[in-house]
């Protein structure tokens, strides 16, 4: 089980009284009064039912939408940051979408190379080396030259992960990575996230701070170090794995599939 990160670790994400708007309509608030601190090295699992605002929370955290109220600081820089000199600070955070959201007319290789080509002035050799490393990491080398639209859903998610890692982010947000995957794929994701979290063998040995959202917290109880859940437009912090096991909230029991549905 992951050990909770020391409270002396620097905060990478700090939200105070933040309101989160829906991506489709920012005025439509899906979460209010979010107070949340993610520290370097944390591994968070945020649970919630479908439509509870998990994706919108991650989109706002990744900087796609501005907070509708409150204060959100990323690496001590006030968000939102959309462009300019501070964009490089925002790029220290990566986002993996639930369905990968690859650019459908590009190949897997081109998708992974895109952020690197856009932001870095690296030569072709370095680009090739970096992209090949990510293809090997995500076991996509054999599908590297396939157009994204012709890729299966599971592999699209893996390619989405590879693309998000192209800029070597320090914080990685993953939107429901286990949604709709089979057991073999589930194990693959668990292993890769474990490696990212510890920094063993990848990312030049640098641990990555992780935040995943889930509709089922069971697979994460042995992996994540911190837990939270979303309910009635609110963000509730649970604590570590021990607190999760003893939490009495009905939704938490449901997210752990311990059945509390009343008829």
């Amino acid at each position, binding site marked *: 089980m992951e050990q909770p990160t020391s409270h002396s670790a620097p905060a990478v994400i700090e939200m105070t009284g933040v309101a989160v708007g829906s*991506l*489709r309509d920012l005025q439509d608030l899906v979460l209010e009064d979010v107070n949340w601190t993610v520290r370097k090295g944390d591994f968070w699992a945020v649970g919630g039912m479908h439509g509870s605002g998990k994706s919108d929370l991650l*989109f706002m955290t*990744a*900087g*796609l939408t501005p907070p509708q109220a409150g204060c959100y600081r990323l690496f001590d820089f006030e968000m939102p940051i*959309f*462009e300019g000199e501070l*964009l490089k600070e*925002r*790029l220290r955070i*990566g*986002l993996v*979408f639930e*369905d990968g*959201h*690859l*650019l*459908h*007319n590009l190949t897997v290789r081109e998708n992974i190379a*895109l*952020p690197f*080509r*856009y*932001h870095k002035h690296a030569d072709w050799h370095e680009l090739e080396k970096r992209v090949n490393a990510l293809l090997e990491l995500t076991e996509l080398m054999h599908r590297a030259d396939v157009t994204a639209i012709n890729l299966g859903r599971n592999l699209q998610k893996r390619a*989405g992960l590879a*693309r*998000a890692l192209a*800029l070597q982010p320090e914080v990685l947000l993953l939107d429901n990575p286990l949604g709709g995957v089979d057991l073999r794929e589930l194990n693959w994701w668990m292993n890769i996230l474990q490696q990212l979290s510890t920094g063993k063998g990848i990312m030049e040995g640098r641990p990555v701070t992780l935040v995943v959202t889930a509709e089922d917290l069971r697979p994460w109880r042995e992996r994540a170090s911190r837990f939270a859940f979303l309910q009635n437009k609110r963000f509730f912090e649970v604590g570590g794995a021990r607190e999760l096991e003893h939490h009495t909230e009905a939704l938490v029991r449901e997210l752990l599939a311990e059945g509390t549905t009343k008829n």
Partner: protein
Amino acid sequence: MEEHVSGTPAPASRFSFLLQAPLPRSYTNFIGRKFFLFFLTIQGIGAFALITMGVMVRKLRTARSVTMPLAFQELARSGVRLVPMFVFVSLVLGLVVIGETVSWASKVGATRFLGPVMVLVVVRELGPLVTALLVLSRSGTANVIELGTARALGEVEALEALGIDPVHYLVVPRVIGMAVGIFALAVYFIIGSLVSGYLWAFLQNVPLRPGDYFNQLAQSLTWLDFATLALKSAFFGVAIAVITCYHGLAQPLRLDEISRATVRAVAQSVVACVLIDALFIILYLAV
């Protein structure tokens, strides 16, 4: 009230009450809504055009290794690949203009006006406009569908998450490619029409030697024609690219909304091209 012989009101006044009657509220509401939508659309497209121009200038040197190939790709799509179709249409246009003109001019012995007519009709008006409309039908519609699909599938958000400005990546290359593509195609189209015009005149036994015909053309052309052609076709390209990209990108779309967005974009692009054309006629006449 004026009485008709049969005792019924005179026809002129029989329906005059219709003019005096207040319009039903639903009609006025309908017209009002249409006006509001019209102005909102103009505002939206105008703002999108300004944003695009701003990004184009500000990010002129940003990620050129990514955006330049995209601009060339768009140039190929809105230019090079359409050349066969344009050759065919230019042959037909030369036939139409010269055929009509010859049948009229030969009756009054005015074949010396063939050159000026070709310049007036093909170079100044039909060449750029027909080019723009054909490119709109082939590439403009593809723009809306591609970008609308990208938007509906969440690709725009993916770009934003990667710190890539969607306007810079998706719109700017299309604007550049389409502006250059329409200009280049308009030039080829005009050359094709002028040459085919002479061929058709020749086949109709018009007593006009090639040297005389091209001399007529040269004498009718002024520097203003070249400047107008370049500016007008570039403006058409920018307008079509901005409007089609606006409808594909500017608002969140679902997949089922893309067809309606495409129809709107085509209609508005046609209106924009005709308005630009009218504006250039006014400017041309003023100069």
